């Protein structure tokens, strides 16, 4: 049981039980659980880095019955991102919640969400994925309603119902597959799907149900309607977790199904639909972000747009034959997802500080606040540049490779989408940043509230500098070799 694969799920679960049992010690226990979970994720990354994909069957049964866990490069990269972001959110949360009731309800739910998240990334069979998906959705909706005000409760009730609808659709797809192939293990199912082209109807129906359900959870346009109110009304650390991690988990699952399970039937024509919706999401989300009056609403719409970018990769992956060019696309897709995770978390944490300090987050009235909080403004600026995709952020490299793939496969229209989205993103980010320049002098100190500002700034810095300038290791972690693209 000391396998890092198990620890990544067991530690936060254990932490959740402990903070529930000993609410007086919630903050201390919570931060210990956060630290140890993040360490387990780092250990897992190190193991996968050295030995490649890990498999584990819990309970010692064979693949049809056991709970299968699996960590390949894609899962590990996302686990590492989610856990580092989770650690940052946890540190931030120790200073954010003051009310005792909030403290006591935040930590158990947050650790439960964390366990579900790691479980989802690492699960190796469809049923466990379903369980984790449900757990994630319920924990997320409960956390989102933590402020207890009417808007938050209404938005998150809707979020919960939408999440259930998505899960049911997914479960129907799972049921279809189970009837057809008699197994839920991802590896065995993949072989089954590939070996039975005569079951095209079942495969296609299952895929449609599962992907549609998950697209609802991933807030792909036009199924994004629930996201902006839910994310914008949650407490800042929760918004960060929802926008940076939870949405990403649903997308991860789509990618998994798309690449591992349904690859025999996901050709260009099939991939065009989600990609076109993604393109509309990029433009529409960015446009709504530009028109948003509140900082957190802006960030939430920006998430809708950023998820859209990830779907643009699907037709490019379909059109590119296996080889270095396809590896680059896959790595770029992940790089954009990771960068968005760090950047959006940093952005929301910083936005939360602005909100606490100013008492509101109306963008047009933020002048003085931006001047008073230089470190926070820096965090917004850095994570903002990563959201735009300016160099040297990870999403710059991601967009570079995305456009390169689009031109190379002759699908040049995606370049126009990326260009337009980038311009709109610059407009909405700099609309906020221009508030940082006013006539008031900046304070004498750079950092005003270290416990909150250091996590925000660190996450933003990772997205903008580390992921952009040293993204090479990601290729190694994904096991793609470094021969890609020539050089």
């Amino acid at each position, binding site marked *: 049981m000391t396998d890092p694969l198990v620890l990544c799920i067991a530690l936060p679960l254990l932490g959740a039980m402990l903070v529930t049992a000993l609410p007086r010690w919630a903050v201390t226990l919570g931060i210990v659980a956060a630290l140890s979970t993040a360490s387990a994720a780092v250990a897992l990354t190190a193991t996968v880095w050295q030995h490649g994909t890990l498999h584990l069957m819990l309970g010692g049964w064979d693949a049809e019955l056991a709970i299968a866990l699996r960590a390949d490069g894609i899962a590990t990269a996302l686990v590492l991102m989610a856990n580092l972001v989770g650690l940052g959110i946890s540190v931030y949360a120790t200073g954010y919640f003051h009310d005792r009731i909030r403290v006591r309800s935040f930590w158990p739910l947050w650790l439960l969400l964390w366990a579900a998240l790691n479980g989802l990334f690492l699960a190796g069979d469809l049923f466990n994925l379903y369980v984790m998906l449900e757990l994630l959705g319920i924990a997320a909706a409960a956390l989102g309603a933590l402020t207890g005000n009417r808007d938050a409760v209404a938005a998150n009730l809707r979020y919960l119902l939408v999440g259930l609808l998505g899960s049911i659709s997914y479960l129907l797809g799972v049921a279809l597959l189970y009837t057809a192939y008699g197994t839920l293990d991802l590896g065995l199912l993949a072989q089954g799907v590939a070996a039975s082209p005569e079951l095209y109807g079942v495969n296609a129906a299952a895929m449609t149900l599962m992907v549609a359900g998950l697209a609802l959870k991933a807030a792909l346009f036009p199924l994004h309607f629930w996201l902006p109110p839910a994310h914008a009304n949650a407490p800042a650390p929760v918004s960060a977790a929802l926008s940076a991690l939870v949405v990403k988990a649903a997308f991860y699952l789509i990618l998994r199904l798309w690449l591992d399970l349904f690859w025999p039937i996901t050709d260009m024509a099939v991939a065009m639909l989600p990609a076109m919706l993604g393109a509309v999401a990029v433009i529409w989300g960015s446009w709504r972000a530009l028109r948003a009056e509140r900082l957190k609403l802006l960030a939430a719409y920006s998430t809708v747009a950023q998820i859209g970018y990830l779907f643009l990769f699907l037709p490019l992956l379909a059109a590119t034959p296996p080889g270095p060019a396809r590896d680059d696309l896959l790595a770029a897709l992940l790089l954009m997802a990771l960068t968005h995770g760090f950047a959006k978390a940093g952005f929301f944490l910083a936005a939360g500080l602005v909100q606490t300090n100013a008492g509101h987050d109306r963008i047009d009235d933020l002048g003085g606040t931006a001047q008073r909080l230089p470190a926070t403004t820096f965090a917004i600026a850095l994570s903002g540049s990563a959201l735009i995709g300016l160099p040297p952020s990870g999403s710059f490299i991601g967009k570079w490779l995305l*456009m390169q793939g689009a*031109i190379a496969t002759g699908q040049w229209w995606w370049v126009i989408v990326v*260009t337009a989205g980038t311009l709109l993103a610059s407009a909405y980010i700099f609309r906020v940043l*221009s508030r940082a320049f*006013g006539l008031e002098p900046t304070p*004498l100190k*750079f950092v005003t509230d270290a416990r909150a500002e250091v996590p925000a700034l660190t996450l933003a810095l990772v997205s903008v500098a580390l992921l952009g*300038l040293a993204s090479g290791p990601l290729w190694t972690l994904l096991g793609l070799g470094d021969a*890609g*693209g020539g050089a």
Partner: protein
Amino acid sequence: MSWDYASLLPGVIVLSSLLPGVFIFLVREESHTLRTVLNLTGAVAKLILVGLLIYGVWLGQVFETRIAIAPGLTLVLNADALSVLFVTLSTVLWLITTVYAIGYLEHSTNRSRFFGFFSLCVSATVGIALSGNLLTFVIFYEILTLATYPLVAHRGTPEATRGAKIYLAYTLTGGLLLLVGAVWLRTLTGPVDFVEGGILDDLPASLHGQLVVIFGLLLAGLGVKAALVPLHGWLPQSMVAPAPVSSLLHAVAVVKAGAFGIVRVVYDVYGVTLAGELGLLAVLSVLASFTIVYGSILAMTQDGLKKRLAYSTVSQVSYIALGTSLLGPVATVGGLVHLVHQGIMKITLFFCAGNYAETLGVANVSQMDGVGRRMPLTTLAFTIGALGMIGIPPIAGFVSKWYLGLGGVEAGQHWVLVILATSTLLNAGYFLPILYRAWFRPLPASWPKEHHFQTRFETMGALLWPPVITAVFCLLAGLLAAAPFSPLEWARLIAQREYGL
């Protein structure tokens, strides 16, 4: 990457201003001394490192820093003769501008933020100069945009925020076009390294159509910063920035980065021969010539001194593009040497304009009657800069115009002489009235907002000596043009290598 001297030096040169910049952000606002020490340490260290670089390049050593970002995407910083020219210019002028800015911003607010971004701005410029491939160039080009935005918006007034917004709208859109062009080119050729003579000769003729479109994208992106008409709209608007920023934008960083990029793309990506065959040079000549004349005409109509200088920049920077667009080594020398000459002359003029505004409150040409008698040294420096811009020998600007004219004749493009003559007349038309007012009109009864410094000179030392020093540079660059290591000789060296002579 490897860890020896030759492969670290270019990277260290970039870091020598980046690291102090990062620390300056953290310096408390009132720690004036600490901030000054950090600023000057960075500037002097960079100057010493660049000295080592020049010596090494002269000896024929190869300096190259390579950092693999991802497979196939490499950050390359290397020093060829062209980068040395630009690096030296920006490093020397950065040191002088830092001294000037410390004096200029004394007692003003938000200085840590200002000097932090100031250092980032120079780091980005040096990165542009040392870029060894198009990817690296694009990265630093965008960082430069981001680092200069806070400097333009620095004053925080509504005009400053507006000017900065316009600046950003132009440069980010341009940067994006550059990015698309760079990505497209990379899909055709693989990594686009800068190589003397260009890298596109081997491409089949069927791709030439695409190459023309890509050149259009790259030129649009670079033309925004180089202020080619009609992409120049941001430049006069960003005049709201403090004087040291204007000096830096016009002489060293932003505008020069655009012009330098055009030189790089024409010579080291397309190759001047291919660019000529595809008809790209002709397009560039027309744009540059139009910009030269149009900028000068607009400059004549401006009463604000800084605005007049801004339009003068629009016009003068296109000399570099004009020299690049003419086929033949002599015109290349003229364009390249103007990269340096325009820098030292224009920075002198902007320093002087800042001095007039800070010391006397004079911001408009119409208020400049008699400033020569009140501030003789500043006005002397201004006069040298202005006469140089007109092209009076023996000041630096004459050398540039001489080589450009000669290059035009050599290329068989005699119309260049007409452009140069028109531009010279227009330059005289907007600079000579200023000189006449400054030296020959009587002093007014009082200045708009006079400021007395505790000094026996006409203004504070930190403001006075920078323009005097750069004015001396303008004279020396003209008088000693034939001496070894002069800008002209270095430009000749580059031209010889580009044409494989």
